Each structure stands twice: as structure tokens, then as C-alpha cells.
């Protein structure tokens, strides 16, 4: 399926079935291919259940990493996507280098209310190549997705969200979003969507072939006044990492304006060890040559 307009980040990623350049072919020959493509997630009888399980997990990991990256790059809080289903894919594992995964998956809108409704036809499709480097964060992602929402509609919704954010009274007295019973007040949805967008950057950076992150809760928000009409806010999220079951608090600072690239800085707390080590993570959507202005 051809996308109408291939979005960034990198050139060369086409629809499913890329033609690698010569050096890439050599690289591919060096990597150990893992048994064949996996079908969709419902039961399959062929092959050994264990291999299929491992394959499926890797494809899922890659799809999630690709989606986090896609959401971040799209920079649109009203066009966020979540994984619907992994459709097909293939993983190559090199014990020394890491893991290369080609994956095709379907997505749906991250609209929490419509999640319970089936078959609205709002399924997008993405294909991605993801490179997980052993023990290193920031998987390399090449992802292409079909358009889910009409561009003009997306711009309108982004601008509406922007207006809602600008109208919020500061200091915001936010306790938790969602509250402990999973409820999000409709007036607070813009904050949540924007927080999810910023968190996508963090989650993309932190995803490896083993670790997988989810946004569990937003626990504090502070919005700053700006001279240039951008949305500028600090917030704390609790991320849930599935394989270790850890809850990771991250402070995130985000600067956004509809249609402009997202700027994110963050600091996540390290797991408490008996010696109480801590680390600092910083990342920015801005290319290295640009100076950050916060």
C-alpha cells in the first residue's frame, strides 16, 4: 500500500519489501536470519510455539518503538496512534550487534473513548525497519504510515487543542491524570494528549528489544508563559516498564506549537539500588546544530 506522501525522517524507506543497497546486502548476509514471517496474533498451529512466541515479541517491540518514534516526529497531539495489530514481519538477530526487524502493522487513533468501539474503519497501516542495538537506547527507526486523519482536520484539531491549553488557568492544580479510577476529565484531555506526545519521545529513546514502556499516569503539570505563543510545559509522568515491572518517574519539559517540530527534554529516575545511584537522561528533538531555547 503506497502512502500518499512519504513523511520524514529518512529517505529510502519505501513500502514493504525494500531493496537494500550493496553494503546492506553484505550486512544482511552476515546476520543470522530467524525463522520466517509470523502471521497475525491469533492462534497458529504450525512451527514450534516457542519460536513463534519469541518472533512475535520482537515484532511487537519493533512496532511499538516505531510508533513512539512516528508519534513524536508527527508532533501532533490529535493524531496520535497506537498499535492495533502486528500483521507480518521478520527479525534478524545478531548476538553481538543487536536485532534488525522489518515489521508491518496496523494502527488506530489514540482516542480513548473510541477504543471500545469496533470496526470504525479507522485503521492505518505502517511499515517499519527497526534496529535495536544491544544494551543501547535509541533504536534506529525508519517508519512509513498511511494517513489516518485528513491533514486539514488534523491541523484544526491541533489548533483547537492549542487554544484549550492556552486558556488553562495557571498554576494548574492537577493531582493525577487519569485519576486512580482511570477517569480523565474531558477538560483535561488536551493536557493528557500533549503529555502522551512528549512521552512518546522518551519511550522511543528508552525502548530496546527487551524493554517496553507504557504511560501509566501523569502526576504533575506546570505550564509556563511564553513570549512566542508556544506551549511550554513541565510535567511528571510515571512510565511502566513491562519486563521489570518498574514504575519510572520522568520529568519532561516540552515546547510545542501546532505544525512545528516538538522539543523535548527529560530526566528519568533510575531504579533505586541499595547504594542509591541516579542518572540523568537528556534528549532533544532539535537537531544538534540548533540551540535549545529553554
Amino acid at each position, binding site marked *: 500500500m503506497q502512502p500518499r506522501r512519504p513523511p520524514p525522517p529518512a529517505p529510502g524507506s519505501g513500502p514493504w519489501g525494500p531493496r537494500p543497497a550493496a553494503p546492506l546486502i553484505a550486512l544482511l548476509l552476515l546476520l543470522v536470519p530467524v525463522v520466517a514471517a509470523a502471521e497475525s*496474533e491469533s492462534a497458529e498451529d504450525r512451527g514450534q510455539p516457542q519460536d513463534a512466541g519469541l518472533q512475535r515479541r520482537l515484532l511487537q517491540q519493533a512496532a511499538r518503538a516505531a510508533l513512539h518514534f512516528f508519534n513524536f516526529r508527527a508532533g501532533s497531539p490529535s493524531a496520535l496512534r497506537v498499535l492495533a495489530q502486528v500483521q507480518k514481519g521478520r527479525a534478524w538477530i545478531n548476538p553481538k550487534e543487536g536485532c534488525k526487524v522489518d515489521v508491518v502493522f496496523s494502527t488506530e487513533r489514540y482516542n480513548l473513548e473510541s*477504543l471500545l468501539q469496533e470496526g470504525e474503519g479507522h485503521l492505518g497501516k505502517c511499515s517499519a525497519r527497526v534496529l535495536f542495538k544491544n544494551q543501547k537506547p535509541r533504536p534506529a527507526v525508519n517508519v512509513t504510515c498511511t494517513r489516518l486523519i485528513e491533514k486539514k482536520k488534523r491541523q484544526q484539531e491541533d489548533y483547537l487543542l492549542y487554544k484549550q491549553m492556552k486558556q488553562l488557568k495557571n498554576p494548574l492544580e492537577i493531582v493525577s491524570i487519569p485519576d486512580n*479510577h482511570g477517569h480523565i476529565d474531558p477538560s483535561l484531555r488536551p493536557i493528557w494528549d500533549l503529555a502522551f506526545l512528549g512521552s512518546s519521545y522518551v519511550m522511543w529513546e528508552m525502548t530496546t528489544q527487551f524493554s517496553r514502556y507504557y504511560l*501509566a499516569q501523569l502526576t504533575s503539570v506546570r505550564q509556563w508563559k511564553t513570549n512566542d505563543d508556544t506551549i511550554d510545559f513541565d510535567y511528571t509522568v510515571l512510565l511502566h516498564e513491562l519486563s521489570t*515491572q518498574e514504575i519510572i518517574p520522568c520529568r519532561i519539559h516540552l515546547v510545542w506549537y501546532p505544525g512545528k517540530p516538538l522539543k523535548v527534554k527529560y530526566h528519568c529516575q533510575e531504579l*533505586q539500588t541499595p547504594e542509591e545511584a541516579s542518572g540523568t537522561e537528556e534528549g532533544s528533538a532539535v537537531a544538534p546544530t540548533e540551540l535549545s531555547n529553554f
Partner: protein
Amino acid sequence: MQGIPGGGTRPGPSPVDRQMLLIFSFTLAVALGQMNFTGDQVLRVLARDEKQLSLLRDLEVLKPQKVLLDEEREAMAKSRRLERSTSSFSYSAYHNLEEIYSWIDNFVMEHSDIVSKIHIGNSFENRTILVLKFSTGGSRHPAIWIDTGIHSREWITHATGIWTANQIVSDYGKDPILTDILKAMDIFIELVTNPDGFAFTHSMNRLWRKNKSIRPGTFCIGVDLNRNWKSGFGGNGSNSNPCSETYHGPFPQSEPEVAAIVNFITAHGNFKALISIHSYSQMLMYPYGRSLEPVSNQRELYNLAKDAVKALYEVHGTEYIFGSISTTLYVASGITVDWAYDSGIKYAFSFELRDTGHYGFLLPATQIIPTAQETWMAIRTIMEHTLTHAY
């Protein structure tokens, strides 16, 4: 610790009363801080007589402090607030420990023909651990075990367990499959497997997972109750760091919450199936978690899981994946279902309920009943298979 501001512009306490107020402030009990970032505090105030009590009521109109009543008074007020029957209990809301235990008492009373409650032990902080028994009589019928809430933040599991308990008594005599099951077998449900952790998720930290045990040598609290079982204890997928969410504890069954179950099931000696319910991820799994080695009846469990997941899907279209724990979710050692299987319980399953990460642990209450309805069909499938494949 916050003091209580006195006076104000409204007709307030008299000078004598004001003194009482001051004395009060100095007799404030320990303030409990909420684990969020807004600086809210909950203060516990002890009132010794009616006069102090009325002073407190005056204070109640002052914001933002919230004042709790004296424990005796509180108990009385509570008994008025708590429901006297299960008919007014909302199955589509989340409840706290007290409300659940109160529901259990009412439930047992209303269905005493087939339901009883058993006190199987106490938690680390000395809370009662209760199990519901569903039985149509006989002595030591082959039995099915279901536990929910072993990880306290997984609120959908307790809610599903409660709904399921009610469903069992409602369907008995109407659903032929369930009726057959109950005629031949007993069902045991432990709703709040980790009561200390659960209380903590209500009072301080919604995302607490472990129990609340403390031991010398570390300031970190709690053991992951689903890593504390005697099966591959301490292996991969569990952690020896007490600060970790998957800390396995100092030795197998070191935790009273786990020991209570082990002792109960072992003493009973006739359990044929065990179902341990968690959230989230939408998965139905069987052993092993501790390694990739398949169990001897892997094919049978695979097919049973497949059927159960299909039955679940047919209710609301919710998609689950299934397989062994190690291949479907991750490698985890010292887990409940591995222990159950190694103890001879052939049908040992672990559920991960809704959702797949949108809300995660904070699943909206509106999803409780749909989740419980679909999960029930899967549980029923497993129980039916257990009945028709006696061993």
C-alpha cells in the same frame, strides 16, 4: 505538619474553645502524606469528647484541611455508611479493602447454602486473609482455586473476582455447565491476595505492586508475591534487589501471604486447577514461566487456552494472546502457576486482563463488567475441562 488556623471572620469558637483548639493542635497524631506532588496532607485528629467533636465539625468547613473523626466515632459512622446487603453494592465501581470485606460478609450470609468464608492466615501487617468457598457439599471434593489481587495495583482483578463470585451464585441452577461443575467440585476464590499492598494503593501509592514486608538491612519495602513461590526460586526473571519490583524475597514462601496459600492448598490436597489473575496485557498463559522448557501436557494446555480465549472473544470481541508464560510474556521465576504445576495441579493458568496499555493498571471502572463477563467465559471453559478430565 500543618496546624489548624483558628478563628476567622465567621462566628467561631469561644476563647475557651480556642484554647481547646490549640491543645488539640498539639495532640495531633502523625500526619500521613499523600504520594503525589500537590502537597496534600491527611491529618488524623483524636477527639476525646462531644465538645471536641463539635469543634472538629466547625473546622470541617475550613478548607483545604480534611479532618478525620475519632476512631470510635469513625467506626460507628462507617457501619452506617457500609452497605447492609450485597444488592446495593456496585459491581461497576472500584472498592477499598473495607468495602470488599464488608461485601464478603454480606455475600456469605446471603448465600450461606453454598458459600462460606475461610480465614487462611494474616498478612505482614496483620490483616486477615480470606478465601471464599463455593460448595454443594461432600467432603473434600476436587477443587478449583482462583486468586485475584496478588499484585495490589491490578485493581481490575479484584473487581473481576467479586463479579465472578456473584456470577457463580447467580448461575448455579441455571447454567448447566456451572451447575455440573459445582455438583462435583468446590471452587475457592481469594479476592484480596495482597491486602496490605491493596490498602496502600488506596492510601498512598496507586501503583504499588508488592506486599509491605520490611526486614533489616534495607530501607526498601515489599516482596513481589508472584516471585516468592518454591519453583525455580531466585532464577531469571526475578530480582535479588529488595528495591526492585520483582524482588523475590529472602527465601521461598518467606511471605505470609504466599505461605498461607501454600499451606492451605497443600493441606487440602485435592486441587485440580489453579487460576491466578493479573493485569494487564490481555493474555492467557500456562507454565512454565521460569524457563522455555515445555510442560508435559503442553499440547493439552495450548488447546484449552485456545478454546478459553475463543470463548472470551465471543463476548465482546476482546483479543487475547496465549501460550506459555515464558514465551508469551517473559521469563519469570518463583511464580504461582509454576509452583502449582510442580505440585501436581495439571491445569494451572495465569490471566493478564484488560487492557494492552492504554490505561494499563488504571482501567476505567466502566470496563469492569465487560472485562468480568468475558473473563468468566474463559474461566468457565477451564473449569469445564477440569471437570471432564478428572485425574
